[in-house]
């Protein structure tokens, strides 16, 4: 699997939510694109990651 341009080994049968939690991402402060399509936040729990998936994870910090 490719995450933000880096090759990352994929645990078998992993959901997107499990991957994000293991990576200590704060799900309220990110946007995720999987294979070029935005993943609605309500689907993080149900999306199952597959071999060869490409993820882009954008994190936001405060200030404006």
């Amino acid at each position, binding site marked *: 699997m490719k995450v933000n341009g880096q090759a990352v080994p994929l645990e078998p049968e992993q959901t997107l939510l499990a991957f994000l939690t293991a990576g200590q991402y704060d799900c*309220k402060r990110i946007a995720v694109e999987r294979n070029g399509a935005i993943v*609605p936040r309500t689907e993080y729990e149900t999306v199952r990651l597959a071999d060869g998936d490409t993820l882009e994870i*954008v994190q936001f910090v*405060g*200030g*404006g």
Partner: protein
Amino acid sequence: MELEVNGKRRTLACRTAFEARGLLGSASDIVILNGFQIEKDCPLAEGDTLAVIPKGVMPGQEELESMMMARHTPAVHKKLKLGRVAIAGLGGLGSNIAVMLARIGVGQLLLVDFDIVEPSNLNRQSYYIRHLGMPKTLALESQLAEINPFVRVETRTVRVEAENVAALFAGYDILCEAFDKPEAKAMLVNTALEQLPGIRIVAASGLAGYASANAIRTARPLERLYLCGDLETGAAVGTGLMAPRVQVCAGHQANMILRLLTGTDEV
């Protein structure tokens, strides 16, 4: 020779810019040829755009717009005039971005914020003492009218939530994310990308403090998301928001919006 002079098509019997000035005004007038203020005489070509501006004289409304836009290359101005940009959040980023977009002559701006101007905003936001207590939407609208009255400005004094994103921003080509809180930034970006097909977002992340301004850059992490900032320096206790870095980031966002409006989608 057929020329565009102060916004109007005219046929003038002249071969150079200063000859044209001689026909239209006096030798002390400023001459701007195709977006550039010239000090030495230049030959003219068919279809050139010329502004001849008397110093210190208030022009009529009709001539004012072409004189204000004389510094832009003509083709650029026409594209910007057709541009429609929504700005969500009118704090340090949004207020400064709105001022820049008005100066370059973007045709239509939507300004959205629920809050009022407070004393703690003045360290970085485009407001003045006289605006304290006013809704930011109206305080900013009044400034834009003084900077460029030819921009159509709409305001919505509401809090942006997932439920009203589609209704607020449908019909806009470009959405500028200029919120303060990271959760609000993520909510807006997610909701707009999900619900508004085709809209392009220019967002910001990482602009607090006074680390090197060179760390602030423009990236395109997703197909329809441009992200400006150093991507890591959040506002926190001990790391405040200060005018210079906030404005550097606002400049990145405004310039990316300018690039998109003129047909360039690369960062």
